[in-house]
């Protein structure tokens, strides 16, 4: 169990989902891929296991990356993926955590709400969203509170 485990940061990337816990460092790093049974809507696999299925599934099963072109192309699946990852990280917490999630800058209000709801349902005490360039700047060690210009170029898998 984590001693400091109250704060989690999640980068919902188009290639990889990475979770960081204060005092612990990176606790999860998985491909943002989900395998879904199209007949039942059930999520069959998430992350590494689902990535192995990409391009190798029979008709009714689809392995997809729910985040494409910097937006959430399928938010029901994104929601399920997020819940799965949060549960994996949060299973280790005694107290419900605060969760900050980094989202691609083009997501709509509806999509933002879906992300917040998914994280709340997964057990977050409080959910915050942050835009990618700001998170990248903080992560790069820049003091963004100053009145000083800083340029950050983040290059992921899909455009951001």
């Amino acid at each position: 169990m984590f001693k400091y485990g109250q704060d989690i940061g999640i980068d919902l990337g188009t290639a990889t989902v990475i979770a960081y816990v204060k005092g612990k460092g990176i606790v999860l790093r998985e491909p943002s891929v989900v395998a879904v049974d199209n007949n039942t809507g059930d999520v069959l696999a998430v992350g590494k296991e689902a990535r192995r299925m990409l391009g190798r599934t029979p008709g009714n099963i689809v392995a997809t990356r729910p985040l494409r072109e910097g937006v959430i192309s399928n938010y029901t699946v994104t929601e399920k993926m997020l819940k799965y990852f949060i549960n994996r990280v949060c299973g280790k917490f005694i107290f419900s955590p605060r969760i900050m999630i980094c989202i691609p800058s083009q997501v709509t209000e509806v999509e933002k709400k879906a992300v917040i709801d998914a994280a709340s349902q997964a057990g977050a005490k409080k959910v915050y969203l942050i835009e990618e360039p700001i998170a990248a700047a903080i992560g790069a060690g820049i003091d963004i509170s100053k009145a000083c210009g800083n340029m950050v170029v983040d290059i992921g898998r899909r455009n951001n």
Partner: protein
Amino acid sequence: MAVISLGGSVVSTSLKVAGDKFDEAIIKYIKKKHNIMIGERTAEDLKINIGCVYPKIQDMEMDIRGRDLITGLPKTVTIHSSEMLEALIETAMMIVDAVHSVLERTPPELAADISDKGIYMTGGGCLLDGLDKLLQEKTGINVMIAQDAVSCVALGTGKALDNLDTLDMRKRK
């Protein structure tokens, strides 16, 4: 990509180019030059292992397998990093142009700060060999790859919880 000051973005733009565009460029190039169709995974392996957008000091090579478009059968060929440069430079220049246009729209004081402190690059895509050198050469501004570039955003996201008051963010219970 953004210019940030006082906890918020002042100028920002959506990059039309990221890692997958480089993979697509490699697939197109191998098809045209070698008449071989390769998959996305192979293209990404090429990019990560021998890809470059600035001439390498020493040429590298890698064997890949794909489908020969004439015979329809699997075929192995050796690809050189010099070919990768040819395949990738156009896509890389689109990133350089995007940075240029953001700098053009940046207020002069902030642009001066950037030219003093340099441009930071983050994300897996910035690890493409020579991208930092190319951007530095074309803009005349020092370019730095953030430490642990791939996890950088996650790290910043977690740390942002310590700076909630500085940040202009949406929150909800």
